[in-house]
């Protein structure tokens, strides 16, 4: 048994590696510094078919699988996380819910452009008062005739305010269940719908070339047909979307962890101190060896989870393990790689300086590390608090 890639997935990996090296690496630092969304790169990724990787050909996709998507995300993240999260969120949070739960009409309306990367979709779950406790969303949607009227707000929504954002899937309370708990449904809100406002970009610690906004909904009216999946199934749908997304985030974290190794190897070979390359010192070598161990294990973990997912087996615990381990590995590697680079590593001109800032969110987004531990514990049969 091996977790090696098939010849086709390996070819894809090489293509994305080449793209990241030749087209992303030279320009991404400037976008990062300006806090600008790298639209030309995203368009190029669209032409390459990256946004359509796990989407069937009949919906305009590449007919590949989720593993292919993760391979691409990992390779991008070796060079830059903003560009990698743009792909991850665009596909796994923007397009996949419509593929998984959408009606044929919704799929026809949205998937071809999402798969081509001509349009991005956002996934609006988190609110100011509702993050890890995602079931407590306060945004409401009321059905008036054949129109949903939405009121509320969302926080930290990725890809929600770019020039090519076409929709945000919003989790909203649509009523109260017989047991008294809120009924939550998912509704597609097209960009530009009156009353749907996009606040200015957050001033983030990292992911500075990725697009994140707070969203407002004031009497936003969309057709009843914009309900995604079944009424009242919104929470379950969001949870299953997030379980898949965790594998992709783990791949992103593995890429960042590997990027730390790549950069440190190159720097340690050329940077001299006390008359020798620093890479000749055992202390530096051990740092790099430990980074490699973490990058390797991160990769094994996400590939195993992805293999289970693609095979249609249960994968939720493996996804949580991969996400938890690799995001912590990314943090550790970013800290150590910055150390290997000395003062240069503390500038955002250096890739590792950006890695250092970008790693932290991996322990927070799409389920914090604590949430992953909770999920793993529950999956092991430990009692729910």
């Amino acid at each position: 048994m091996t977790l090696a890639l098939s010849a086709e997935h390996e070819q894809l990996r090489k293509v994305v590696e080449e793209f990241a090296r030749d087209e992303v690496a030279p320009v991404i630092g400037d976008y990062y510094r300006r806090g600008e969304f790298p639209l030309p790169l995203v368009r190029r990724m669209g032409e390459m078919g990256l946004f359509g990787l796990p989407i069937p050909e009949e919906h305009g996709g590449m007919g590949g699988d989720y593993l292919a998507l993760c391979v691409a995300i990992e390779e991008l993240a070796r060079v830059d996380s903003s560009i990698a999260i743009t792909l991850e969120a665009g596909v796994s949070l923007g397009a996949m819910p419509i593929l998984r739960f959408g009606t044929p009409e919704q799929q026809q309306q949205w998937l071809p452009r999402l798969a081509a990367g001509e349009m991005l979709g956002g996934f609006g779950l988190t609110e100011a008062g509702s993050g890890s406790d995602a079931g407590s969303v306060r945004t409401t949607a009321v059905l008036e005739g054949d129109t949903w009227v939405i009121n509320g707000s969302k926080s930290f929504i990725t890809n929600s305010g770019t020039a090519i954002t076409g929709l945000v899937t919003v989790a909203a309370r649509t009523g109260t269940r017989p047991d008294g708990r809120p009924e939550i449904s998912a509704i597609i809100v097209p960009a530009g719908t009156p009353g749907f406002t996009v606040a200015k970009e957050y001033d983030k610690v990292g992911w500075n070339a990725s697009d994140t906004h707070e969203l407002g909904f004031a009497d936003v009216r969309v057709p009843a047909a914009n309900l995604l999946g079944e009424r009242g199934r919104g929470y379950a749908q969001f949870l299953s979307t997030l379980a898949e997304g965790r594998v992709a985030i783990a791949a992103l974290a593995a890429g960042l962890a590997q990027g730390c190794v790549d950069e440190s190897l190159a720097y340690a070979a050329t940077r001299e101190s006390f008359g020798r390359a620093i890479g000749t010192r055992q202390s530096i070598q051990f740092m790099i060896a430990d980074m490699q161990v973490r990058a390797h294990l991160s990769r094994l973990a996400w590939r195993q989870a992805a293999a289970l997912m693609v095979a249609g087996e249960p994968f939720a615990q493996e996804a949580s393990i991969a996400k938890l381990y690799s995001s912590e590995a990314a943090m550790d590697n970013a800290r150590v790689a910055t150390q290997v680079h000395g003062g240069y590593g503390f500038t955002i001109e250096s890739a590792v300086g950006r890695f250092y800032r970008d790693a932290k969110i991996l322990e927070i987004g799409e389920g914090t590390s604590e949430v992953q531990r909770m999920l793993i514990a529950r999956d092991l049969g430990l009692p729910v608090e």
Partner: protein
Amino acid sequence: MREVDSETMKIVVCVKQVPDSWAEKTLRPSDNTLDRESVDAVMNELDEYAVEEALRLQEAQGGEVVVLSMGPSQATDTIRKALSMGADAGVHVVDDGLHGSDAVATSLALAKAIEAQGADLVIFGSESTDARMSVVPAMVAERLGLPQLTFSSSVAVDGGTVRTNRVTEYGYDVVEAPLPALVSVVEKINEPRYPSFKGIMAAKKKPVQTLGLADLGVAAGEVGLGAAWSVVAEAAARPPKAKGTIVADDGSGGVAIADYLSAQKFI
């Protein structure tokens, strides 16, 4: 002049696998030929423009694109890449007897393979990033008796005619020739596409024909290291970078620098 029906136009693109230009290259100690095994191999960058140009011509007016490569067995990766970009079929010329072939011998093997294909248009990149000779396209054209339109910065086919802009020191010449013809393209003639995953999957099902020297009707003595017109007699590793000279400016710095540059014959 041969009438070419654009619907059935056959374009043969020659591609070469070369060591990644980012990689440190070495010579094999046994025969001073390039060690192709110890480095990552990629499609010659200039040939990506050739493949892209062929695909654009095909998209504009139909026909078939066949990609031809001569090289060791791992050169199939480069053929696969061209097929993933969209070429229809591949031909791989591979034979132990070809090891160490110089440009003259390479042009012979390629010419024989192209002849067997019966191409209306042959497209090359203008040079390979490992040898940088730029002579193979011209040699192949000579061997096949084809008009050669080298160093093209644009290529247009109209009926039985190909017209190119040939890059010169002063600008470009507009050159025209009847098909069949041979073209070599310069860097930046277009923006080569990346293979999509759909293209990668589709490439799995595309045919790749493998040809040896016997299939081409080439005698072993005509190619390979033994037939090369030049041999690398000796090679030495590049000397390590010497420490630079530091001129401390005590008022006569300018003179010292000028003396240094003139001693090195720079000025």
